[in-house]
């Protein structure tokens, strides 16, 4: 009996609290890989979306209406991602979608959100989701908050050019993300006077890359560039050390993460990669306008929500935060009518986020420039900004 009364009371309390939060919440669907191989990226991303929504709601919501976040698990699998997206569109009838977090998954749901006319801001690394034409379809309704692969490639190539590293060997993951990186690495090489001397690949779950690396080392390149996310990058780093290869190793913008140092161990020493300013943010110049934004984000993440005990901040941490804020700002301006909301997202100008200064255009559904990234090097197990 007491249990029943307690349940009733709790029910009443929940009801009154949610009524106080205005009757008509704005539904936003958010789905990331909470299980499967990408769970370690997807889970903290989900936590960040919750943190961002809580902040917005605490500050009065969007024009008085709170955001209701509907979460889904994409399970690191395209088919599962499609099912969740379908549910968001048909059952929950969300105003906008945030996620998914892997390029493979993004490509799987792209056509569906395009057909359903749902503004979608993905947190994927690869560019094909915001490219159109031929097999890529359209990208009218899809945006993404992480830097384009091409932006990261240019950042990296600038560094190589400046340091006179001309012969580059590639070792690339066989995922959509890896292939996208490879496309840009090959396409942009001539612009920076770089020749690609080797082109090796590996599976995202492979456990040993010494065969590929010894082949690469035999060609004596000036630099090795590895393009992958997840633990495979750390294995490449370990194998490089194991084979006693002295050629500098560069990783992509997907790997700056304390986990990388932990997994690769001493082998990670001296590895370089393009990263968002979130890595080594305390080394940024005080004049950098982003420093303040990042400081606030880091404070919330580490000190208020204590997410860092399980998921220390990495280069991806800010993407979902920025995605939510871009959508929320657009709803503030244009309401939830899909077409108007989409236009408003596309017209986002000067949003200073954790991951950079966003200026979106019709052609650029990402809006981040090279100035949003830095090159970092691992020195004594710490991330160090390099000029």
């Amino acid at each position, binding site marked *: 009996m007491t249990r029943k009364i307690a349940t009733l009371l709790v029910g009443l309390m929940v009801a009154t609290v949610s009524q106080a939060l205005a009757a008509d919440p704005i539904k936003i669907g958010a789905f990331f890989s909470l299980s499967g191989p990408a769970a370690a990226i997807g889970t903290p991303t989900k936590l960040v979306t919750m943190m961002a929504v809580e902040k917005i709601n605490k500050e009065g919501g969007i024009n008085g209406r709170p955001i209701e976040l509907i979460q889904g698990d994409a399970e690191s699998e395209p088919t599962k991602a499609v099912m969740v997206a379908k549910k968001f569109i048909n059952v929950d009838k969300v105003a906008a979608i945030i996620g998914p977090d892997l390029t493979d998954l993004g490509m799987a749901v792209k056509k569906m959100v395009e057909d359903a006319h749902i503004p979608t801001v993905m947190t994927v690394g690869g560019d094909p989701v915001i490219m159109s034409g031929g097999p890529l379809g359209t990208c009218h309704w899809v945006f993404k908050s992480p830097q384009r692969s091409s932006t990261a490639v240019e950042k990296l190539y600038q560094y190589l050019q400046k340091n006179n590293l001309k012969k580059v060997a590639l070792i690339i993951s066989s995922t959509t993300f890896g292939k996208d990186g490879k496309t840009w690495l090959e396409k942009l090489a001539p612009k920076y006077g770089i020749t690609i001397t080797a082109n090796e690949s590996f599976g995202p779950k492979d456990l040993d890359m010494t065969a590929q690396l010894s082949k690469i080392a035999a060609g004596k390149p000036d630099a090795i560039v590895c393009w992958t996310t997840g633990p495979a990058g750390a*294995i490449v780093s370990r194998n490089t050390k194991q084979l006693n290869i002295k050629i500098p190793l560069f990783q992509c913008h997907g790997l700056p993460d304390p986990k990388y140092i932990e997994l690769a161990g001493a082998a990670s020493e001296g590895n370089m990669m393009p990263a968002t300013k979130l890595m080594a943010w305390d080394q940024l110049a005080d004049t950098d306008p982003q420093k303040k934004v990042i400081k606030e984000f880091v404070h919330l993440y580490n000190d208020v929500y204590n997410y860092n005990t399980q998921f220390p901040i990495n280069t991806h941490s800010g993407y979902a935060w920025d995605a939510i804020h871009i959508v929320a700002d657009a709803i503030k301006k244009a309401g939830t009518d899909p077409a108007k909301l989409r236009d408003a997202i596309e017209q986002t100008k000067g949003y200073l986020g954790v991951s950079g200064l966003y200026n979106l255009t019709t052609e650029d559904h990402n809006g981040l420039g090279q100035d949003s990234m830095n090159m970092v090097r691992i020195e004594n197990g710490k991330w160090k900004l390099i000029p």
Partner: protein
Amino acid sequence: MTTWDQFAQFVFSGLTTGSIYALIALGFCIIHNSTGLVNFTQVDFVSLGGLMMYTLFLGLGLPLPAAFVLGVLAVTAVGGLVERLTIRPARSREITVLIFITIGVSILMRGLFKIIWGKNQMALPSFSGDSPLIILGAAVLPQSLWIFVITLLVVGLLHYFFSRTRVGKAMRATSFNPRAAALMGVDVNSMILLSFALSGGLGAVAGILIVPITTLSYDVGVMLGLKGFAAAILGGYGNVVGAVVGGLVLGVLESIGAGMITSTYKDVIAFSILLLILFFKPGGLLGYGEKQKV
């Protein structure tokens, strides 16, 4: 690096992963021999070995040899429990049903690991440092040597166990004909329990040995297990020597395929050769061909 050095490198890399495939393949074999089952929880025994090592060595700070032995024993016990709790109650059912049970248990175990150890990737230190030794021009990790030595040791012990000891002989008798063995006074139930425990232990050894090289996650055994399964088939499913040969051959094929031909199609190369071998020798390299088990 000369071509020869490169070749030596590919062979050593291949033998390292190949030894692990071999240990896993052995686990598959032993259970197959005693029950006729394909035991899908084998892959989780591998993961659990690595995870236990993580907890015992890094979490509780036990010395490495103690953590190793305790880890293997723990997974051995889990192997026995899997048989006792899930297989034995259903053993009168068809083989297919039992195989499905192992798939279910495998999914359950993976879910539990995820809850207990979390989704994050973990790293374990090597047994004795990371500075490679140069052997025949190839850089070989000390961990690889550990893998070779322990695999050899395990295979030797298994051979001794099956050919010289009473219990080993009883297990072989059970695998040939459980009914006849039972009539001769062999406790068939115990033999099957033992085979699961043994496979658990073998999986754990494989997991503990490889994770310092590959990094660790709750599902690290899945990919390895798949390759180990392929290795068991390549060697002739159920053949103990074949499992070892199959593992080593598959590992070296992969590595040479990636290094000498193209890394994009390294799995295609390895598995095409596997298919070709099975095409001409359906029973596997050392299999008994079409012959029915008695």
